[in-house]
C-alpha cells in the first residue's frame, strides 16, 4: 500500500523509495533493499505498477516505476480495508 501510495505522487526508483519510506515515517519503516525489490517486481508482475528506464549521467539507465490504473484501483481498495481495520483497532484500544 505504501509503495503504491508513493508512486501515485510521482515516478520513483527503488533507492528513492527506500529513502522516502525511511524519511516519511521518521525512520519507522527502514526496509532493506533486499525486501523492497522482490515486492516491486511482484507488483509489476501483477500489473499494479509498470517500469520504464530513463537515461541518467554517464549514459546509464535507471529503472523508474509508475502506478497503473489497476494499481490505483487496488490502492483505493487496500486503503479502504486499512481504514476500517485501523478504526476498529483504535476503537478497541481506546476503550
Amino acid at each position, binding site marked *: 500500500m505504501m509503495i503504491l501510495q508513493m508512486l501515485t505522487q510521482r515516478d520513483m526508483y527503488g*533507492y528513492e523509495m527506500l529513502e522516502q519510506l525511511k524519511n516519511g515515517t521518521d525512520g519507522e519503516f527502514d526496509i*532493506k*533493499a533486499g525486501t523492497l*525489490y*522482490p515486492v516491486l517486481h511482484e507488483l*509489476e508482475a501483477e500489473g499494479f505498477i509498470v*517500469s520504464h528506464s530513463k537515461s541518467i549521467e554517464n549514459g546509464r*539507465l*535507471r529503472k523508474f516505476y509508475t502506478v497503473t490504473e489497476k494499481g490505483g484501483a487496488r490502492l483505493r481498495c487496500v486503503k479502504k480495508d486499512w481504514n476500517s481495520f485501523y478504526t476498529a483497532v483504535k476503537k478497541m484500544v481506546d476503550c
Partner: protein
Amino acid sequence: MDIKSFLDILEMQIKENRVKEAVREELSDHMEMSADEKISEGMTQEEAEKAVWSEMGDPTELGARLNRIHSPSPAPFTIALVFMMTLTGGYIRLFIAQGDNDVILRMTAAVIAGVVLFAAVTKTGYTFFLTRRKELYEISVGIMFVLLLPHFAGNRMPLIIGEDTHLKMWRLTYIYELFLPISLAMTYSAAYAPRRLLTGQLYLLPICIFTLCSHSFEQFMVCIAAGTVMFAYNVIMNTVCTAKIKAALLTLPLALGIFSVILWRGYLCFRLAVFRHDETLIPNNNSGQRIMYGRFISGLTSSHESMIIFAAVLFLIFFIITAMKLPKLTAPFGRFITLLCLTVIICRLLFSVMGDLNIFRFIGVSYPLINAGSRSTLEYISDIFLISLICSAYRERKMFPEKNVRS
C-alpha cells in the same frame, strides 16, 4: 564482499538471461548509489560495499525469489489440454490404423518430436525467433515464393517437384504456416524492420532453375517476371524505403501470403465439393491409392465419432482460454503472435469442421493435433509449434519488454 560478487551470486540463481541482465542493471545502480552515499559519510570503499551487501541480504535467497517471480509457468492447463488432445488423436489413429505398424510408428515418432519441440520452443520463447527475424523473414518469403511460382507458371513443373504437384504443394503450406506468424510479428513494427535484406539475391538461384526448367514460353516469361519483381523489391527495400515504409511493405506480402493460403484451401474445398464426382480432381497418395474423402474414415463407430466431438470440444476450450488470456498479455509482440497463431489454428479447425459436416470434402485438413502421425505428421508438428509459441507468450511479462528483440 564486494558489489560484483553479490551480483554474480544473485545472477546464478536466475535462469533467464534477459532477466539476469535487467536485475543486475537495476540492483547494481541501487548498490552503487548506496555505496557512494556511505563513502561520502566517511566509510571506506570496502566498508561501504560490506554495508550495502548487508542491506541487500542474502544474494542466493534474493536471486531465488526474483527467479520465482520471473519464471511463471507456461500455462499448465493449456499443456494439459494439448496432452489430452494428442491422446484423443492417438486413440482415434490407433483405431484407424488397425494394427498397421507403419502408422503406429509414425504416430509415435510424431508425438515424441512434438513433445521435444513443445519443450524447446516454450523454454526458449518466441523472442528467440524474433531475434532471428531477418533469417525467418527470408525463409518465409522464400517458401511463399517457391510455393506460388509454379502455380503462376501453370502448375506444371515436373522436373522440379514431380508429377504429383497438388499434394506436394499442399504440404508446403504447412511449412509456410510454421514461419508465418513470427515473420509477420517481426515486421509488425517499423522499429524492428530488418535493415538489409537478401531476398532478391537469395532467390536468384531458384528463379534460374525454374527458368531453365520451363517448358513453355509462358512459364519462361512468368519466371523472368517473378525474378525481376523479387529483385526490384529487394533493391527498393534496401535503398529507397524509410523504416516505416519498409516495415509496411515487408508485412504486406506475408499477410497476403497467409490469406492466399487460406483462400486457396477454401477454393480447393469448394471445388471438390462442387465436382465431387470428378475423380480426376482427387490426388493419389504415395502408394498410388485414392485419398479418402468425406468423413474421417467410413468405418468409424459412434463411440469414435464421440471422441472426435470430444476433441472438438477440447479445442473450443483451448480457444476460449486463449482468447480470454489474450487481453491480459502485456508484451505487445507476445499478444500479436498469440493472435496470429490462434487465427491460423482456428481457420484450420473451421475447414476441418466443415469437412466433417460434409459441407466440404476432406482434402487432408483435419483437427489440429488430432491426427498425429498419420498423413499429416507435418501438420501436427506445425500445430505444436504454433501452440508452443502461444504458451511461450504466456510466460512473457512486460517487465523486461522483449529487450533482446530491440537490439
